[in-house]
């Protein structure tokens, strides 16, 4: 019998490193996580903490320098100032409207993608949903500016039916933001629906559940975490936006505009930080509410 002999592995330095790592799990973990932890810890968390801290400092109105003395003035201004209250409510309203519209649009699209379309169609649709993300945010916002203008395509389409474009303002802002964040809402819901086995839908139907009970009692509870993940995107991104409202929002301001003005023109970083805390607090409030409903228990 002729058996080809299998050569023994050679002792290379790379092999010695592998042997060391395979016998030292801690070293392995350290090597795996040190770079991301450095990024997350130093670059990300520290920047956030600095923001938080800056909100409690103030600006010397004479020199324009930041004085590092603890004060609650900025926080009080932001909470009590009627301008900030109005803009906060407006921003919140826009973010909620955008989120509702996006969920309403994303649910049927995602359901079609995950449960109805053929595998080939599914791939095409995923690409179609992702394609707009390749284009610049600015270009898309300006495209909507032209669509929504008085002599734009929307006016031309609606005029024969007695309608007209909403023009520039909050409705235009909501429409444009809904468009911009829609892919971020579709994708998690699509992924969530993909994970729901078809047999569960069949089981519901088999047991006598028509379309609506099946959607309400089986599909909806199972994709709720995915829907919430999607709403966190659209909600948080809308809360922080200031460019879209600049382009199609007419004279309206959102929280982002106030931050921008205070960092730039007004040169008041502490106040800007205090304003920036508002969306952070709102998002935390939202997450807390979501947690309370138990929607994340099935994650």
């Amino acid at each position, binding site marked *: 019998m002729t058996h080809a002999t299998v050569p023994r592995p050679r002792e290379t330095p790379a092999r010695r490193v592998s042997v060391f790592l395979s016998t030292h799990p801690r070293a392995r973990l350290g090597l795996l996580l040190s770079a991301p932890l450095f990024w997350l810890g130093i670059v990300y968390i520290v920047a956030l903490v600095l923001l938080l801290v800056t909100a409690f400092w103030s600006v010397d109105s004479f020199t324009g320098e930041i004085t590092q003395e603890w004060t609650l003035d900025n926080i009080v201004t932001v909470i009590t100032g009627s301008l900030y209250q109005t803009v906060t409510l407006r921003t919140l309203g826009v973010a909620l409207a955008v989120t509702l519209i996006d969920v309403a649009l994303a649910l049927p699209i995602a359901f079609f993608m995950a449960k109805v379309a053929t595998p080939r169609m599914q791939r095409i649709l995923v690409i179609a949903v992702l394609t707009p993300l390749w284009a610049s945010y600015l270009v898309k916002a300006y495209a909507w500016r032209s669509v929504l203008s008085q002599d734009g395509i929307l006016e031309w389409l609606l005029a024969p039916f007695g309608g007209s474009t909403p023009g520039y303002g909050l409705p235009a802002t909501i429409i444009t933001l809904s468009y911009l964040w829609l892919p971020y809402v579709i994708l998690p819901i699509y992924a969530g629906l993909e994970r729901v086995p078809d047999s569960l839908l*069949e089981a519901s*139907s*088999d*047991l*006598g*559940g*028509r379309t609506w009970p099946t959607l309400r009692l089986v599909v909806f509870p199972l994709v709720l975490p995915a829907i919430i993940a999607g709403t966190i995107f659209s909600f948080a991104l809308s809360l922080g936006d200031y460019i879209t409202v600049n382009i199609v929002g007419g004279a309206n301001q959102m929280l982002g505009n106030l931050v921008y003005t205070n960092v730039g023109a007004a040169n008041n970083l502490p106040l800007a930080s205090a304003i920036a805390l508002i969306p952070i607090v709102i998002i935390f409030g939202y997450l807390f509410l979501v947690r309370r409903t138990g929607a994340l228990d099935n994650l």
Partner: protein
Amino acid sequence: MTETQPAIRLTALTKEFGAVTAVDHVDLEIAAGEFFSMLGPSGSGKTTVLRLIAGFEQPSGGTVELFGQDVTKRAPFDRDVNTVFQDYALFPHMSVLDNVAYGLRVRGLGRKERNERALRALASVRLEQMAGRKPSQLSGGQRQRVALARATVVQPKVLLLDEPLGALDLKLREQMQVELKQIQRELGITFIFVTHDQEEALTLSDRIAVFNDGRIEQLGTPAELYERPRSRFVADFVGTSNLFDADRSRTILGREGHHSVRPEKMTVTRDGLRQQGVVDVPGTVVEAIYLGSGVRLVVDLDDGTRVTVLEQNDRGRQHDDERGDRVVVSWHDDDVVPLGIEVLPGISG
């Protein structure tokens, strides 16, 4: 609805997926109260037939009748049949009780009423103490029983079971087989059971349809299928068989056509039985496998035909055969089953 109506009648049922014909003009009648199995290898169309009966697929042709009523065009929720799914398909976000009560809930029953009935159904599978748990906290066998309770609580006329024991280990499987049979007897409803496990089908069923290539190859009681397989496929798929093609049938058996002999119908001795109506063929032992309850011997007959013999491990066994031993394989003429005259690609044992 009369007693004489079959529970299920399939007429020229056909299902095509693109160019593939998964179910090819199947005609079948299943009597009320019958434990009926559809047996076949994967891809033979048995599961598709089940899904056509349940209504998950629409047939390309033919009809499905349920107690004389044509339900071919009806949605699954409009058919009086329920399914126990292969993966159980329990709703992961609901408690065991809510899972079982689901069918009653979508029928509009009040919470109290449906919970009572669901608890009773759970009690019938001895799981009432698990009512508050989530499906993920149950073992495979328990999930299986919940799925059974969920499907039977809505009192279907026909219960469809899609390889329900496939995911269980052997001991649990055998235990669940007994339980299934008991439940079927208690409920008195028709069970249609899909499996690729021939032993399971033989154990459980009143009648079995053996599927191959989208058609029913043979339909009969377990004994009929096992004792009198009508084709090489059935002889080979239901149990193991020693198959003799036309040439070997002529030289060894002295008969025309193809034939099969079951391994347990053959005996191995040193000198042959030398009796009227018994065929004695000399050969050499190639493999002797101890099975506990018996011994499986692989013997090469002198003309090169390889046969498998199953010897019971009883006092009748006089000696231990080993590799290389010269022996005589004997079987009774009555145990030779004719398989028709189809063309066989070769001999398998």
